[in-house]
């Protein structure tokens, strides 16, 4: 099985769980015989992926590792073309991105004509694909719309990635296209139409998860477009499948659930012995954004502190809600009980998980929540919100509705007061982790590939 995977990040250069999940899944898939070509927007060096061909969408200097050799097409870098006149005989692939309605394939040309006469395009690429000329149009890639949450150039990045992927991959051989999250959907859909190969879009999170009701309409639309255009949708949890159905009206039969897994770790005893000496630590580790529920963590802390005087709450990570959280901690007079170490990486993350007495994941809407499994793999018991996919697969955890800060505080206090509770949870959860292996996810994934290809 030859799989072309489109991803947005790969360890160690990651911003969240997406890259970790892609690494876990591809490693297991390759163990079970899948040949994977994985394209990310950029490689930074330091990526270690001997199990597949990991490629930079910019092409140029190929950074290919291991036995599989990613073939780079002779096609040069996509040319950016000014103006918007379509030449006759040129096949046009149009990806609606901003504020434009979802277009059906037969209306591309009509829309293109209409657009040519009025609306402006900021990104048009001419590509040579299988001796055909392709004009790829990305509507209105205007700066600023996604600025607040995603940085100024996310849509430009998506446009660039889309064009480069089409140029890069049109000469690759593959049986199925597997795209991870919305940033890769435009490229995946275009490639699927060009190659006539089946498309699986893999939903690790939705705009609805990240932003609640305040969705970015453009991203929401790209997701909608990708989910509808795909031949199959894979959700990381039943929770996410239900959100996909509700928000995007995708039929149940088209959405399959493949839970994430985790790889075993060895607990670093050096970190553990530090835990015994210091204060009792309650850990939040993740992006400090609406989706992750840091505010519920802080409100629960205010209820815990009066009963556990030596407790220390560590709110690790960065994000748009961080300043507000710091301010709220001051308002509540909890300064002496809080630490904000910022964004942690690599060994810092491992050390933090190991030091914590309990890990709290109070996510408002969490498609999976791989960090809960990571915490357990460092022998730290977890309290997770019921609004998470991981709560479907993890029995040996304490569970709470994210809004119920009273109950969350009750659970935190008890977890801190009773060593026997923490020890039993960790012992049982470790056994449970052995069953949540990426191998199981990969086997399920392979079965889905075979069904499509």
């Amino acid at each position, binding site marked *: 099985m030859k799989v072309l995977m489109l991803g947005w990040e790969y360890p160690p250069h990651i911003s969240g769980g997406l890259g970790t999940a892609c690494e876990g899944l591809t490693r297991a898939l390759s163990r079970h015989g899948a040949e994977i070509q994985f394209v990310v927007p950029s490689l930074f060096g330091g990526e270690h992926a001997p199990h597949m061909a990991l490629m930079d969408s910019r092409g140029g200097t190929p950074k290919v590792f291991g036995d599989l050799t990613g073939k780079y097409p002779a096609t040069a870098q996509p040319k950016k073309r000014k103006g918007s006149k379509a030449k006759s005989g040129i096949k046009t692939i149009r990806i609606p991105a901003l504020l434009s309605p979802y277009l059906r394939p037969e209306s591309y040309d009509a829309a293109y004509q209409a657009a040519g006469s009025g609306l402006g395009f900021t990104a048009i690429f001419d590509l040579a694909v299988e001796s055909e000329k392709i004009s790829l149009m990305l509507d209105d890639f205007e700066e600023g719309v996604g600025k607040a949450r995603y940085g100024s150039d996310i849509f430009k990045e998506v446009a660039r990635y889309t064009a480069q992927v089409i140029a890069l991959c049109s000469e690759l051989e593959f049986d199925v296209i597997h795209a991870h999250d919305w940033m890769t959907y435009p490229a995946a859909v275009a490639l699927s139409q060009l190659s006539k190969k089946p498309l699986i879009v893999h939903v690790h999170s939705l705009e609805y998860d990240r932003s609640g009701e305040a969705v970015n309409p453009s991203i929401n639309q790209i997701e909608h477009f990708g989910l509808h255009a795909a031949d199959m949708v894979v959700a990381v949890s039943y929770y996410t499948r239900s959100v996909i159905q509700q928000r995007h009206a995708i039929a149940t039969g088209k959405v399959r659930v493949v839970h994430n897994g985790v790889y075993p770790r060895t607990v670093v005893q050096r970190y553990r012995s530090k835990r015994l000496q210091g204060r009792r630590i309650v850990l939040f580790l993740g992006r400090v954004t609406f989706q992750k529920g840091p505010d519920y963590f802080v409100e629960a802390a205010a*209820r815990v502190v009066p*009963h556990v005087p030596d407790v220390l709450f560590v709110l690790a990570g960065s994000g748009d809600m961080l300043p507000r959280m710091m301010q709220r901690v001051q308002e509540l007079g909890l300064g002496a009980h809080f630490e904000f170490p910022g964004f942690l990486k690599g060994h810092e993350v491992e050390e933090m998980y190991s030091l914590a007495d309990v890990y709290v994941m109070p996510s408002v809407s969490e498609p999976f929540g791989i960090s809960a499994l990571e915490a357990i793999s460092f022998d730290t018991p977890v309290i997770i919100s019921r609004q998470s996919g991981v709560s479907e697969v993890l*029995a*040996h*955890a*304490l*569970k709470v509705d994210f809004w119920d800060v*009273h*109950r969350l*505080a*009750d*659970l935190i*206090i*008890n977890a801190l*007061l*009773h*060593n*026997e*509770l923490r*020890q*039993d*949870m960790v*012992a*049982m959860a470790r056994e*449970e982790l052995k069953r949540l292996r990426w191998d199981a996810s990969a086997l399920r994934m392979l079965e889905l590939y075979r069904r499509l290809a």
Partner: protein
Amino acid sequence: MPSVCFYFQVHQPFRLKRYSFFDIGKDHDYFDSDKNEAISQKVAHKCYLPTNQVLLDLIKQYRGAFRLAFSITGTAIEQMRLYAPEALASFVELSKTGCVEFLAETYHHSLSSLYDEEEFREQVRLHRELMLEVFGYQPRIFRNTELIYSDAIGALVSDMGFRGCIAEGADDIVGWRSPNFIYSMPGRSTRLLLKNYRLSDDVAFRFSNRGWECYPLTAEKYAGWIHSVSGAGDTVNLFMDFETFGEHQWASTGIFEFLKHLPGEIFKHKDWNFATPSEVLELYPSRAEMAYPRVTSWADVDRDTSAWRGNRMQLSALEQIYDLGKAVRWQNDPQALAIWRKLLTSDHFYYMCTKWFADGDVHAYFSPYESPYEGFINYMNALKDFKAFYLGRGSEEEEKSGG
């Protein structure tokens, strides 16, 4: 002239309500009267009332040749009095036929035999009084919580004057011998009745299992298995939860039809009869001594006490609640004593059991909690308040001067 000996266990715990850490010091009532009432009503209507009607009809139909025994805990009787008096009346009516024996056990279905000998004797005494009061019956055979038994517990039971005791016919204990004979405690005349767990569990656990090679189990087939013991045993002891009928095995599985037809099928073999545990001891001699060097029970495949004492949470909770025994009894506050004893009921610790929890097995099925951890947290919160409020009342001054 072999016998079929039926004994059914009737028990309901006083379940705790959701009790948060923040209720400590404010709320001193720990029990979920709504849930306990709802469950009592449900069990009464699905199991107790319809099964007792079948049993009463069978006793009348066979003019007393159909006989059986119950062991009913004090907490079950208390809840029937509170929430389902019609169910209690149906047990009383059965008792009047003279065909029903009542066994003794700890009033609160506790693990006191493992933790507190004084409390154990007291709870057995309370239960004997209750049997006398409710059924006018003086139990002669003892059955410990969940059939928990060992030589040490046997000695206690023997010293209390019981003629016999029920125990699990666990494979590693019984060995090559058969559970279908009467045995005696080592060095004592007190007898042991061993549960035939294969035949008992065929009904209690496997009856409606479509994956079982013997499915469907008819009364005729089952009676045939029992009859095959002829010549190789004196008694087939079928001991099970009463809720097998109508609650664990729903009426739609045909369990009631099975029960209705079983005596007729047994009687087709002229040698066979029904007898209660006391009658079995009258009818047959002890064949040998049976030693129980380890603590056994009828729970899970392990037939040990790990369902209640298998993890740190359970051991810690048990140790802490039993540690209060001396203080509670010394304080002699009837309300505090009653609450403490309800907290001793073994079910609270069963809910904290973590083995197989993730597999969603019977432990999860019987638990009012989402996880064993929540069971533990709830219990420890209530226990903390109990200590501070009910035990703190008399000893506040002492504590202040001491620390």
